[in-house]
Structure formats: C-alpha cells, structure tokens
C-alpha cells in the first residue's frame, strides 16, 4: 500500500532526525569532505593534465609543421633548382645558341626525361617569340604548334627584356591546361645578344602531386603554393588555383571558414610575399590550426610562397580523451561518495533499529525479571508462612505424642508412629524455613569456638541412641583429635546430621564412618563415608540442589541446606562414590 507523501516525509524526517546525531553528522561530513576534496583534486589534476598534454601536442604540431613546411620548401626549391639548371644548360648549348634545331632536339627530350615528375615539357622560342621546338612531341603536333607566336607571353617578354630567369603565375595555356612557366633567356656569346628563350612548362596539378607526396601523413596538413604576386599556383581545392589569395573568392573562403584568423592569415601572406617566413595560430572551421608560411627563393629571386595549415584536431582528440577520462573519474568519485553516504546512512539506520530492538528486549527482560522476583518473594513468603504455620501445630502434636508414648505402653508403637511422623513433619518445616532463609539471604550465623570432635561425638552418640534398635548399620567416629573451630555450632550440627541422615538412608548394612581431620592449609574437613548404594552418576552434577535426593523419607532439602550453610562459613562441600562401595560426603570449613 503506498504511503501518503506527507506520511513518508514525516517518516523520513523522523528517521533522519534520529539518525543524524552529532557524532553521526561529524562522520557524514568527514566522508563528504574527503570525497569532495578527492573529487576536486582529481578534477583539477585531470584538467591540468589535459591542458598540459594538449599544449604539448599542439607544440609538437607547431614544430612539426614548421619542419614540414621547411622540408617542403627545400624539396620544391631543389626540384625547381634542377629545372633552372637544366634550362641554364640548354640555353648555353652551342646548338641552341646557334639555332641548330636538329642537333638541339635530343637535348630537350633528354631534359624532359630527367625531370619527369613535375615537368610537362621544355619549349624553345626564338628571338621573335615563335616556337622552335617542344620536347617529346610527335611531328604532327609539332607541325600544329610550329612557329606559334608567343611573343606576347610574359614568360617571353620578361627574360627578353631582363636577360634573367622568369617565373610565371598560373596561366591558362592555349590548350586550356593550368600551368606555370619558368623561362630562361638564350644569349649569344656576348650577353646582350638575345636569341630566344627556353621554357619549362609545369602543370599545376603535377606540382601539387609532388608536394602532396612529400607531406607527412601524420600531420594531416594542407599545403598550397602561391606565386610571387599571391596567385595560388596549387591548392587541393582546384577552384582556387589561379586566384589571388587577396582576391574576393579566397578572402570569402577565409572569412567564412575562419573569420577570426582572416587578419592573421592575410598578415602571413603579406609577410611571406615580402620574403619572410613565420608561424601563426589560426582557427579553421572552428578548429585551431597552425599556419606556417615560407618564401621560396630561387636564384636569389622569390619564386613564390609555400604554406601549410595543420589542424590541431589530433591534439584536441588527445585532450578530448583525457577530458572524457576526467569526467568519468569525476562521475566515479561522485558515485563512490554517494554510495559511501548511502552506506553510512544504511548502517546508521540499521544500527539505530538494532539499538531500538535491544532496548525493547532489555525492557521486556527487566519487566519479566521484576515479575519473577516478585513471584519468588511471594513464594518464599508463602513457604515461610506455611512452614511457620505448619510447625506451630506440630509442636503440641509431638509433645502430646511423646507424653502418650510414655503413658500408653501397649499402644506404644502407634503413638511412636505418630511421633515419628510429627518429627518428620517438623524437620520438613525446619528445612523449608532454612531454605527460605537461605534464598532470602537472611541466614544468620551465630559463631562460637568449639571442639568439632566433641560435637561429632555428641551427634554420633545421639544417633546411636536414636537408632539403637536398627540393625545392620554400624555408626563409627574415627577421630580422636581435638580440633577447635569457630563456627555456628547449631548449623554445623545440622550439616553433620544431614550428612549422617543421608548416609543412613542409603546404607542398609555395613558402616557409616565419620572422620575429622585438619588439612594442610588449616581447614577442617569432616567426612561421612558409607557402604551404601552410592550416588547415581546422573545425580552428581546437581546433588546439592533442592529436591535432588532420591530418598523416600527425606525432604530433599538437606544437602541444599548443608551446602548453603558450609558456603556461608566460607567452606565447600562435595561428594564422591567410593572405589569399593558406597559414597563419601565431605565438607571443609576454615
């Protein structure tokens, strides 16, 4: 049945108020503080570690990008340097200088073969700018291009006018292919004689392929190449080839992909076009990246600019993984802390319930105990009263019976029976009173000094006198030594009588021997040894408890009273079966 909310909250408050004692509160706060501290330290440390590792990874990317750009620029410079050397060699060849086409042709083809990776063709223009020869071309194609006037091309005009090497931007050639050109003047013996040019045609995609092949796959960089005016010679995205980096198309791309870094990148391009290299951190499509730019200088002239952009994504990935671990640790710690608190609360609740149960049981026991005490007291009082009340009429009966015994000789046996039973009843009432005193802890000893041997002698004599007619059992007293003790004479007499009574009850024939002796520790031991039936082993453990006796005639209280009297004297009492026959009861007192 669902508990109503108000009832539930009431229960919760009640139990929380009960559980959260001051001690428990301290415990809970301690656990929570430790958990919170560990969480905070762990979180902060993870954060620190994550930032450190990301920073290290980013630094690694920066330096590797720089090395990468440097290597790429060097590789490209070497490659283009080879091309320029080839152009130089061709231009200085005598056949070329003299316009001996037939002898010069093989040289062009050979040069083409030596740099197949980026070179599309080598071309020879005469001093008028007309095509003389194209490397590795068949006769039909040659006939098509032969004498084509390219004098308007800057790659012709510039070396003609400057007598120096020229690097073109990207040109949509007559065949529609995007190429860049490196041209070298052919000069006569005296350097002012211009005899034409040799040109290397390099496809934009071929140079891109070369650069891409040199890129380290680990960096995931993008590489691009600009000419010395900022025109893109190569970019992975073909639509930007031939466009100016400062032109609207490329600027729009930059502005849309990294508006915050637009200024930094433009600054980088400007610096690079002025012959400087550098590294900048930029944001590309909301991801951080490193932008490295290097000018490419050939023959002391700037050919262009190479730049690479390396995203920091992999550094972010590393940091992201650490971040995940950090969050996981934090969650774990919070869960552990929550579990710890829950466990503490459960233990406290359980503890509280246990405490309540124990309290309840203790109360129950206390009540039961009180009830038992009352009952016991009432019982004792009853026995006490009963015994007194029983004894009161016994005395006159006994007195009258004894008087009648003397007076009525013939009816003596009947009267004796009355007297015997009255005595037995008297003993029972006496014993009951003694038990009542013992259990009511009101047994009082009236100590005096006396000779124990003498006492035993009197008791024995008394017994002999009382049992003069009984046959078969001989009562003997062995000790002749006088031993003085300080004890309650009457009670000790009672103990000895009880033990003798007990021995006589279980001995049909033979002897009952009473002996006294002084122990080495000064205690006085009195033994009653019989030749009777002995003690049943099953009775021995509770021999001295109430009503343990198997006797037909006794009250069953004698041994219990004897033990209590002996112990009240600071002594002890015990019994054992003899080796041959019968049993021996012994008590010792100080």
């Amino acid at each position, binding site marked *: 049945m669902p508990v109503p909310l108000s009832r539930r909250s009431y229960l919760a408050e009640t139990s929380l108020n009960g559980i959260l004692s001051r001690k428990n509160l301290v415990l809970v706060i301690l656990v929570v503080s430790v958990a919170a501290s560990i969480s905070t330290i762990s979180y902060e440390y993870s954060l620190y570690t994550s930032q450190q590792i990301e920073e290290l990874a980013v630094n690694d990317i920066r330096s590797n990008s720089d090395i990468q750009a440097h290597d790429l620029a060097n590789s490209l410079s070497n490659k283009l340097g080879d091309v320029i050397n080839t152009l130089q060699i061709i231009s200085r060849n005598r056949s070329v200088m003299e316009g001996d086409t037939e002898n010069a042709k093989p040289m062009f083809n050979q040069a083409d073969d030596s740099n197949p990776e980026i070179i599309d063709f080598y071309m020879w223009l005469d001093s008028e700018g007309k095509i003389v020869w194209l490397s590795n071309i068949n006769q039909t194609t040659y006939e098509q291009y032969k004498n084509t006037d390219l004098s308007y091309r800057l790659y012709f005009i510039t070396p003609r006018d400057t007598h120096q090497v020229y690097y073109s931007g990207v040109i949509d050639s007559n065949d529609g292919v995007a190429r860049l050109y490196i041209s070298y003047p052919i000069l006569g013996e005296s350097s002012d004689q211009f005899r034409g040019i040799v040109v290397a045609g390099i496809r934009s995609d071929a140079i891109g392929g070369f650069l891409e092949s040199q890129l380290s796959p680990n960096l995931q960089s993008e590489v691009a190449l600009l000419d010395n005016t900022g*025109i893109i010679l190569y970019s992975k995205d073909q639509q930007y080839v031939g466009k100016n980096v400062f032109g609207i198309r490329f600027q729009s791309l930059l502005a849309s992909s990294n508006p915050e870094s637009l200024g930094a990148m433009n600054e980088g391009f400007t610096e690079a076009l002025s012959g400087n290299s550098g590294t900048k951190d930029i944001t590309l499509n909301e991801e951080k990246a490193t932008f490295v730019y290097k000018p490419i200088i050939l023959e002391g002239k700037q050919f262009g600019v190479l730049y690479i952009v390396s995203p920091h994504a992999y550094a972010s990935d590393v940091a992201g993984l650490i971040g995940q671990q950090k969050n996981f640790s934090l969650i774990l710690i919070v869960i552990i802390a929550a579990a710890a608190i829950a466990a503490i609360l459960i233990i406290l609740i359980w503890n509280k319930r246990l405490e309540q149960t124990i309290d309840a049981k203790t109360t129950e026991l206390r009540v039961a105990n009180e009830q038992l005490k009352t009952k016991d007291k009432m019982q004792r009082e009853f026995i006490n009263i009963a015994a007194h009340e029983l004894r009161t009429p016994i005395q006159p009966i006994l007195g009258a019976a004894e008087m009648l015994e003397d007076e009525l000789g013939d009816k003596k046996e009947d009267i004796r029976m009355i007297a015997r039973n009255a005595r037995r009843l008297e003993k029972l009432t006496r014993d009951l009173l003694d038990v009542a005193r013992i259990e009511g802890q009101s047994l009082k000893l009236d100590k005096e000094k006396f000779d124990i041997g003498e006492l035993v002698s009197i008791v024995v004599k008394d017994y002999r006198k009382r049992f003069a007619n009984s046959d078969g059992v001989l009562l003997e007293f062995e000790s002749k030594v006088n031993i003085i003790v300080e004890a309650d004479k009457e009670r000790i007499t009672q103990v000895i009588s009880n033990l003798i009574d007990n021995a006589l009850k279980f001995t049909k024939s033979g002897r009952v021997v009473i002996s006294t002796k002084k122990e080495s520790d000064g205690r006085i031991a009195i033994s009653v040894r019989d030749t009777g039936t002995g003690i049943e082993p099953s009775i021995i453990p509770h021999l001295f408890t109430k009503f343990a006796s198997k006797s037909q005639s006794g009250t069953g209280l004698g041994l219990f009273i004897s033990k209590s009297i002996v112990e009240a004297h600071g002594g002890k009492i015990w019994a054992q079966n003899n080796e041959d026959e019968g049993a021996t009861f012994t008590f010792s007192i100080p």
Partner: protein
Amino acid sequence: MARTITHAVMAAIIVAAIGVTVIAFTTSGNFQRNPAEPKSTLRIAVVTDALFSDKGWGESSLNAARAIESKYGFEVVTEDNIPIANIESTLKRYAEAGYDLIIAHGVQWGDPALRVGKQYQGVKIVVFTGLVQSENVASIFPQQQQGSFLLGAIAGMMTQTNVIGYVGGEEYPNVVNIFEGYKQGARAANPDVKIIGTYLNDWDNPAKGKEAATAIIRQNVDVIFHVADSSGQGVIESARENGVFALGAVQDQNSLAPDTVLSSFVLDVDKAYGQAVNSTLAGSFRGEIRKPGIEAEKGAAGDGIVYLASFHDLDSEVPTSVKSKLQEITNDLLEGRIIVPERFEETLLPP
C-alpha cells in the same frame, strides 16, 4: 532548529557530493546609438585598395573626393593602395579618429565595413559597389550591367570577325555582373557573336593585362572590353598594338588610346558620393543598398549614375545605323523597356 540544521546539512551534502559547478556567462555589448542629426560640416575619408593612378576605377574615386571638397568646402582625406589585409584596420583607424563619413571604394570593403560599423556606431560608412547594409553602413551598387549592356551592343554591332572579348581583374560578383550585361547586350545586337573572356586575378598589373588580352585577341577578337583597373591599361595597349577596338570601364578611357578606345561605361562617382554626403549632412542617412541605374549623360537629372562615354575621334568609325540602334537601346533601358537582370554567377556561353 534541529530540523533546520539537518536540512542545511543535507543540502550541503548534496551540493558537495554532486559537485555542482555554476558557470556564469557574462556578455557585454556596446549599444551606444548616435541619433542622426543634421550637421553643418563633415569629416570625410575616401579609401580604396585601388590606385588613384589607374586612369579608371581608382582615379574616379579620387576625382569624386576632390569634387566634394570643391563643392562643399570640406576637407576630404583620401588614401589608396590599401592592402586587402589592412582594409579593416584602415576603417577602424578613421572611425577611431572620429570621421563622420567613410566612403569605401570597392566591393572588398563590404564585410570589414559591417564589422567596423558594428563596433563604431557613430561613423557612417558607404561602400561604393558594395552589397552590404546595416544601421550605419550603406552601399551604392550601380547597375553597371546596364552600362555594359550598351557596350556589349556596340561590340556586337562593330565586330567584323563576330568574336569579341573581355578581360576582368577578378571574378568579383559585381564584375561578373558587368560582363553578364556585356554578353547580353552583345547577343541582343548580334545573336551570332562569339565571346571570349578571362580574369587576371590581378588589378594592378598592366603587363599581365596585356598578355591576357593578346592571348584573347589572337583568337580573332576585334573588340575587347576590360574591367581591370590598372591591368586594364595593358588590355588597351594590347588592343592598340593589335589594331582592335577596346572598351573602357568606370571612366572615359578614350584618352589612354584615342584611336583604340571606342567607348567606356562611366560611373558618375561624383554624383554617387555627393548623394552620400547630402544624406549624412541632412541626418537622413539610411543603412540601405541603393542601386542607381543608367542616366542619359553625366549629371543628368534622376538617380542614375551609369552612362556611356562618347566615341570621341572614333565617331566617324561608327556607322549611323549603329548609333541609332544604340540610342534606341539606351532609351529602352532608361524607360525600362529593357531590363538587364543582375547576375552574380557567370553563365555558360552558348557554343
């Protein structure tokens, strides 16, 4: 009391165990507004990435600035050849210095103008040939395609080879729009005409312009149109050397090669700048994109700021039939019978 403490402790436990972190984000913004109000004098800056010496686009800007000075008596600061990378910082510099009006000459200035305008609410920026607007940034986007439509018609009618060409500085949307107008005008006048064009990606390189123009002229082109600023001078030179007609842009470029430059579409930049100054002075400046179209001649009534330069000494080379057809088309444009749509993406030429 005990319950209060218990609640407080429980709250503290929950807070500590869960480890709630509160992150406050604060934003701040500059909402200062300068209400428009009439002014008696203005501090004006005219800035461009072009060269004032380009005999065309850049020079038109400088001329218009000087016209404002002489007309209103204000001092107008001018600055040219500003690297693209420095456009934004240049605008900021003038805004910071408290200029009332910055006239930015060129489409490249559009986005930076928006950013700077947002930051400096007190300044007004007008982007000539721009297509941007905000509260304090306006654009004047002349319907240049109407002017180039007329040039296209001339080229289509004057070509002997039926092949005409064009050279653009860069594939800007507004440049594309100009050439699209040129193509439409040429086809309207001569459906058989073939058109060859290229872009230089360089506005200030006459040698490159000449090389590209020559490559085009070699393909049997006998009329070539350029929109390429300084590079365009190379185009005109190539036309002159190759004996073909050239068509100029923005200014009347006949003086560069009187026997070669047949006509030019001219932007009445003085009029456009004057409109910007007037609205700022009157406090009626509105952050809008104005698209003034063609006018019959320089300074003509109406909002138009695009007109055609005369044939000058080449007038005799132009047949009367061509002139009358041209007049007819001009009237149709002025009266809206011919609409030349804006096209910012290059259309494929029919085979």
